[in-house]
């Protein structure tokens, strides 16, 4: 856990004093990612660097797991905090292995232990140790360097990580890949992380909580969904963007928004049974599933009413389905491109799990406003 208490930094410059951090109060709970967000020069980096004492606070205090950082020896402190900078900062004179082992070496770990850990960590980010351990940084691509930069900070297994735009120096596509990779790692290692970004999309994706700064002040500190749904003032609303509700779509999975245990029919059911089921639920159509429960097709009320025969003879193909672990943004996109107001939701094996409607999505997005 990281706690900042009235943290203030004033830089004295020839042109006058600059308050880069103005009485910041915040707490990053154990195992969570807190993203510091804000326009350029608002004090994100300064605030973060005070945690590992690369910048000494003018006043205020910082606690990591209850111990006052300002009273800890900075060298010892920094070896217990993983640190990643935007320029990555791999040492060009050292191999990938030596880079990863930098902190373990400082801590005097057994060589064998640290070297095998380096190999493990490389595998964690999908780099083959046999290929990469002995390479030098100049022999890596930008994305590979970034990965090595992150695992180097993880090498000594620090409980706390500080990351200053760690994925900034990379193209958008690879950035997504690395972000996903990192989130997967974090779900296992559960570090307490302070993460600087200036990209709202990255913040929404990575953060458990977002702290938005403006000229040295912490303006709002909330979960991504609350921040997007309830921006505190115009500055925040402008900063998160006019499409902020669309951004919230990313935060909700299909599973959370869908109607579960939906009615269904099989190919052998008669059309009159299907009609009865639809009328019972007030639906305009119903999904036909296969023998193992996979969504196979749909049958419309208007087509089935008054007809004789079996469902298997009259069903129509599904235009598209959406998987339950996707986010609502993908669901909405699929709905719009198929020109449908509802979609069948399936799991990874294609089993029919529920359905999602445009109304249901509107409803779940609006819930946060109705609760107030």
């Amino acid at each position, binding site marked *: 856990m990281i706690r900042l208490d009235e943290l203030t930094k004033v830089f004295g410059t020839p042109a006058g004093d600059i308050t880069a951090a103005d009485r910041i109060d915040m707490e990053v709970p154990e195992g969570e990612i807190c993203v510091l967000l804000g326009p350029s020069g608002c004090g994100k980096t300064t605030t973060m660097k005070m945690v590992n004492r690369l910048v000494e606070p003018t006043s205020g205090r910082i606690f990591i797991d209850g111990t006052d950082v300002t009273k800890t020896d900075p060298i010892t*402190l920094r070896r217990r905090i993983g640190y990643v900078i935007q320029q990555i900062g791999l040492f*060009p004179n050292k191999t990938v292995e030596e880079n990863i082992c930098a*902190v373990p070496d400082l801590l005097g770990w057994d060589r064998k232990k640290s070297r095998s850990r380096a190999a493990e960590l490389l595998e964690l980010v999908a780099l083959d140790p046999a290929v990469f351990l002995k390479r030098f940084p100049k022999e890596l691509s930008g994305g590979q360097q970034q990965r090595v930069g992150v695992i180097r*900070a993880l090498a000594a297994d620090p409980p706390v990580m500080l990351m200053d735009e760690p994925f900034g120096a990379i193209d958008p596509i690879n950035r997504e890949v690395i972000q996903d990779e990192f989130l997967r790692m974090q779900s296992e290692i559960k570090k307490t992380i302070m993460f600087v970004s200036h990209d709202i999309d990255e913040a929404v994706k990575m953060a458990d909580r977002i702290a938005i700064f403006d000229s040295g002040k912490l303006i709002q500190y909330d979960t991504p969904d609350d921040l997007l749904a309830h921006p505190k003032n115009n500055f925040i609303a402008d900063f998160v963007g006019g499409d902020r509700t669309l951004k919230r779509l990313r935060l909700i999975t299909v599973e959370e928004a869908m109607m579960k245990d939906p009615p269904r029919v099989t190919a052998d059911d008669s059309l009159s049974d299907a009609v009865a089921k639809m009328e019972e639920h007030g639906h305009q159509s119903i999904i036909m599933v296969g023998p193992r429960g996979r969504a196979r097709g749909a049958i419309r009320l208007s087509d089935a009413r008054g007809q004789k025969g079996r469902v298997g003879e009259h069903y129509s193909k599904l235009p598209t389905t959406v998987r339950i672990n996707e986010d609502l943004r993908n669901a909405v996109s699929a709905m719009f491109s198929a020109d449908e107001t509802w979609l069948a939701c399936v799991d990874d094996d294609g089993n029919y799990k529920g359905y999602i409607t445009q109304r249901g999505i509107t409803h779940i997005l609006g819930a946060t406003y109705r609760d107030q």
Partner: protein
Amino acid sequence: MNRAASEDANVRTYEDDGFRDTDYQAAGRTRNRLKSGIDRLAGAMRLADAIGAGTLKRFNGVIYALALFALGAWAWASGILQSIWELRDDVIYLTFGEWRDVTEFLSGDFSATLQHIPLVLVSGLLAILVGVPFGVWLSRPYMARYAEALMQVLNVGTTIPTLAILALSMSVLGIGSLPAVFGLFVATLLPIVRNAYAGCSSVPSHLIESATGMGMTPRQIMMRVEVPNALFVIFAGIRTALAINVGTVPLAFLIGGGGLGELIFQGIALNDFGMMLAGAIPVALLAVFVDFLLAQGQYWLVPRGVNPLR
């Protein structure tokens, strides 16, 4: 802040044109110059390595062999070769000197005379041992305030011709090998200090930040990050410095320092072409040899990750 200031400050490096580099202007020589210097150096050295490694095209080999043969034939016909051969004992003595003289000199008996190679070794090693640590020390953040001023002094020092340095040295220390060693030491020192300083202060600040952030002490940062990353530039400085050194040693004779200069200058004075060449040819060979050795050192000792040659 200090570091940033010293980084942006003008740094000037020696390149392979150490002798001619007297058109010095303090302003506007920045790290870029250092970089392009390194590139040019790298190009030049790749060439030298190619020759050294014997990867000459056969065609070139034939031309060289023919030229060498023609030269040899001419030398033989004019009797120069014979007169060089007659001087062989002198050449060997003036090149290597005697071990006893070296030990005596090093143990403080400065009346002993150092000959050619001992002069190079003693003054060169001394300059490396003093120059590298001094340059690194100047690049420390707490020295930033004085470092630039000191570099200016060194720059002015470089514009003084080496012969004048020897003369000045003689006027203070008298005649013999001591003023020669001292003069050579001073002339060799400057490029070494400057490159060590420039190399260390041009290590990117984000490397320092990432090293500090992971909990290295200032000393660890210096030894594990700054010096290794500056090593290629430091080596380039040593190469230039020793080229100056080897080129100046013949002048040591003029202040009683010993060495092959004796044959060259006496050859000139006596109008004895053979004697002059008996001095000049080994001097030239030695210069090539020393640079070859250092090029190999630079190639193999500088870590691959920061070695543009590898």
